[in-house]
């Protein structure tokens, strides 16, 4: 046949096997394809395929960025270079602290002003987003301040249209990762270890310590991002 007329479910299977770069490009094919690619459920499927293949990458961040100005992703099994992407010029002077990454989106902050500016980046589609001065309960986060805080980063798929529009940070993942106010009435936990958060099933978990008299109890804090 000259042209194929593949049913929609086969098109979806084919698209789910394509890398993010090709998906970004093929949004230009027609509106139907764009809608499939931008569908949050679609984003979950290729992600599951990727994880089932067990592909993991290490991120190489050059310390001296006068000579090297690119991040490099290395495959964790072979140490082959998988992808190199340029660090945007405004980040070149920064001391990176990578907070976490999730679904291919990386969250990092400047060590000199921990938490006051957060940067999100998706290397495979080369999109960056900066969140400046996240405010929690009216208190601006800054390293010098009196407020103890921890940062967590993760992804929640929201179904609420309005919410999605404001918190969507990249093309083909409907990622909700806005730094929302998290009001906690009673917060007895004394220390939360920074950078120790783990994301599972839309829940961010932190390790914390709870002081009960003289006894210190380690606990796990969980925060559900989808329903704050």
């Amino acid at each position, binding site marked *: *046949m*000259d*042209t*194929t*007329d*593949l*049913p929609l479910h*086969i*098109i979806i*299977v*084919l*698209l789910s*096997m*394509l*890398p993010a*770069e*090709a998906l*970004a*490009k*093929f*949004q*230009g*094919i*027609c*509106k*139907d*394809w*764009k809608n499939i690619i931008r569908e949050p459920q679609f984003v979950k499927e290729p992600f599951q395929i990727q994880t089932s293949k067990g592909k993991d990458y290490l991120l190489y961040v050059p310390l001296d960025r006068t000579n090297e100005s690119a991040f490099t992703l290395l495959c964790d099994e072979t140490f082959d270079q998988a992808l190199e992407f340029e660090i945007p010029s405004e980040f070149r002077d920064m001391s990176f602290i990578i907070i976490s990454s999730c679904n291919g989106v990386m969250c990092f902050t400047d060590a000199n002003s921990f938490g006051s500016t957060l940067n999100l980046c998706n290397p495979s*589609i*080369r999109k960056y987003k900066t969140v400046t001065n996240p405010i929690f309960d009216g208190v601006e986060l800054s390293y010098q301040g009196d407020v103890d805080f921890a940062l967590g980063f993760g992804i929640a798929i929201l179904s609420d249209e309005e919410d999605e529009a404001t918190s969507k940070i990249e*093309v083909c993942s409907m990622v909700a990762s806005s730094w929302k106010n998290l009001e906690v009435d009673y917060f007895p936990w004394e220390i939360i270890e920074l950078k120790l958060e783990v994301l599972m099933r839309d829940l961010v978990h932190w390790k914390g310590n709870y002081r009960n008299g003289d006894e210190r109890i380690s606990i796990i804090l969980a925060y559900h991002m989808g329903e704050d």
Partner: protein
Amino acid sequence: MAAETGTPTTLTLKSNDDELFSVAESAAILSVTIRNMVEDGCAGGVIPLDNVDGKTLASVITYMNGISAIPADEEKKKSYRDKFLSDKDFETLADMVLAANYLNMSCLMDAVSAKIAQVMEKKSVGWVRRKFGIENDYTPEEEAAVKEEHKWTFEGVETDDDN
């Protein structure tokens, strides 16, 4: 069924353009569609496969025979599949993915889908539209905006001379 008599049972498959093919039942039941027919006792005479043409069915039967001759060794099966698909053009692959879907053959379906995705990956938007028979429903302004948003993805796109 075959196992009871000890002699291999042969099935006759008929394509939608009336070509007949003989295939060992043990190979043909890689297709869940055919297996169900055999188990339901509907495979006595000729099995009509209304969604598959003769050229594609011949190819699928080559695959059925080839893969079922390989003992349970995933590495060898994979290399057989890679070799089997290596010389197929896009149209053949598209016919095969439809046939694999209709015949419910998951291993062929997965392999052909992956191959098509691999072929598509570096192609231009225009190539994919042509091959998939898709009409561009963007206005020129909308198309320019989508392109602008993903400008960098057009680096490294292959030229379209290859069919």
